[in-house]
């Protein structure tokens, strides 16, 4: 059984999926948002890639951490995988192609793949009691009937360590942590195999974040869940994920096992991200030995339309002409570790020269 980050740079061979290696296979996933323009120069639509040609696998019972800054396309990837927004490419869940599915087939499949959202205040209907919220998926999929429904509600609330007394409460009467537990309980109600967790800790108090993360990891161990854990918090991702994919501007720029990424990151963006993680002890915090982010870097590049070349070229201190012309492909650097960077070998050996100021 392949436990490595099963990455393929190119499309998989058109064969029957083995069905054992990975629960989720994402190939050439692209998400484009189009908006109508109120202009009269003939151009009526403007489209922008939120996700462009993303490939990764999530092996069964494992967690893939998807990290990147705001606007990098993490959430779009999560929504596209669950077929909640229009996307191009291929998403195979347990061997079955999901993109393009609709109606009863897709609804049926949704019992197996669920999502927990960033802000439970938004994702829970304020006019429903907790009981009703958790009952919704159970009734929609006829998972239980009669008194069995309430028994199941109590059971899933129990799984997320919530007292059944909360059943008659409204979301605004709960704490942030309790609300997120309710959202997790709702996702668990259909006994899914796979859950997309979209920034599930970012709206929570720091003291509660750890509780929710620990709960999620316990649930994963108990129920054999496969997770896509989207977060910008590298500390939490490290705790949760065996595999990590780093996204920048709609592209996966580095993908590998957690230890590889944290101990031996290669992409300049990943390095910059890791250096930005604050240390709990300021005395231990060392000044970075090398800058992996240009001194004049801004996030402005994120808002412009991609016009070829490496997505990180505007913020990378090592940008060369090649980087501006040719987009680097995600290529294997070590077993299970891939990086999309032209200068990866120089960066690995520490011989990459800064080109800052040349442009």
């Amino acid at each position, binding site marked *: 059984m392949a436990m490595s980050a099963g990455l393929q740079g190119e499309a998989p061979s058109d064969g029957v999926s083995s069905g054992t290696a990975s629960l989720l296979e994402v190939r050439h996933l692209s998400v484009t948002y189009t908006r109508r323009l109120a202009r009269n120069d003939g151009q009526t639509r403007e489209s922008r890639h939120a996700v462009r040609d993303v490939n990764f696998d999530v092996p069964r019972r494992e967690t893939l951490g998807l990290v990147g800054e705001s606007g990098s396309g993490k959430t779009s990837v999560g929504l596209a995988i669950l077929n909640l927004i229009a996307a191009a490419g291929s998403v195979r869940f347990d061997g079955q192609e999901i993109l393009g599915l609709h109606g009863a087939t897709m609804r049926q499949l949704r019992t197996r793949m669920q999502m927990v959202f960033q*802000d439970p205040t938004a994702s829970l209907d*304020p006019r429903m009691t907790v009981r009703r919220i958790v009952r919704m998926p159970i009734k929609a999929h006829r998972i239980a009937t009669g008194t069995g429904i309430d028994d199941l509600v109590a059971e899933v609330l129990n799984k997320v360590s919530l007292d059944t007394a909360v059943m008659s409460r409204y979301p605004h009467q709960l704490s942030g942590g309790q609300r997120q537990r309710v959202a997790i309980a709702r996702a668990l109600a259909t006994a899914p195999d796979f859950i997309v967790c979209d920034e599930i800790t970012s709206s929570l108090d720091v003291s509660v974040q750890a509780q929710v993360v620990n709960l999620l990891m316990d649930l994963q161990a108990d129920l054999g869940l496969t997770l896509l854990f989207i977060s910008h918090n590298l500390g939490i991702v490290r705790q949760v994920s065996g595999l990590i994919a780093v996204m920048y501007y709609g592209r996966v720029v580095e993908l590998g096992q957690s230890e590889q990424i944290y101990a031996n990151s290669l992409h300049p963006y990943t390095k910059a991200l890791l250096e930005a993680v604050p240390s709990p002890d300021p005395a231990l915090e060392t000044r970075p030995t090398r800058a992996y982010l240009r001194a004049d870097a801004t996030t402005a590049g994120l808002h412009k339309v991609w016009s070829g070349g490496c997505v990180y070229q505007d913020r990378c201190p090592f940008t060369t002409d090649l980087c501006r012309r040719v987009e680097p492909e995600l290529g294997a650097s070590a077993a299970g570790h891939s990086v999309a960077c032209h200068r990866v070998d120089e960066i690995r050996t520490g011989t990459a020269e800064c080109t800052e100021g040349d442009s």
Partner: protein
Amino acid sequence: MKTHVSAIRQRMPSLSACILIVIGILVAIAAIYPRAFTSGNPNAIDPNAILAGPSLRHLLGTDEAGADIYTRIIYGTRLDAEISLFSVGIAYAVGVPLGLLAGWWRGALDEILSRLSAGILAFPIVLLALLIVGSFGTSAPTLIAILALAFLPQVTLLARAQTMAVCARGYVLAARATGLRERRIITVHVLHNITPQLLVLSPQLMSQAILIEASLSYLGVGIQPPAITWGSLLLDASNYYQQDPLYAISTGLVVTIAAALLLVAGDLISRWADPLRRR
């Protein structure tokens, strides 16, 4: 036990709501069974007391034909209640589903409905009423139809806007992610969440209905005698406001108070329907 008591108190209407409910019941009784409030006949004429002031026999005095004003106001309640209830009811029955679908599906349906609504809204209601009355004549059903048509765009646009706002909320996406049918999402999540906002508008529209009915009656294109509405009373009273100011003041106050109470009712309804605003 304590939580039980507080739960009941949460659901208990406030004092102002209680007063409004009592008034509402009284008005309903007056509309359905006016004899409960007066033993007189609204069309009984007393030639010896024309435009008489208040007395024990005639609490609010008499009108130009010697009929009891109080009795006529009570008997006028029924038509006003019918007109306001039915016109608003029809506008809601048609407008809410249209607005929901337009807000949910968007696209061409939304485009057409929005333009149509704007078109109707741009048309002065009294002018519209004059046109329709001119061609179909006055009757309560005609008036109800006119008012329903006038209220329809307001209800449709409100339902549409609220639907669009609710659709952007996380719980609608979450409901889709859990695998709910679209129909369920619309009825359970969307309709449920736009109900308070829709309810706020209904008493406002009813008060508008009463005021518009009064304006049309005043212009002479409202309900015709011998049917009695508050508006028609106001028209009669306006001719004699110098001889008998109380005649005009009492009928005018009835219309004003009814409209005002309906506005207060709208606010109370929204507060009651919203768990976040409920104390």
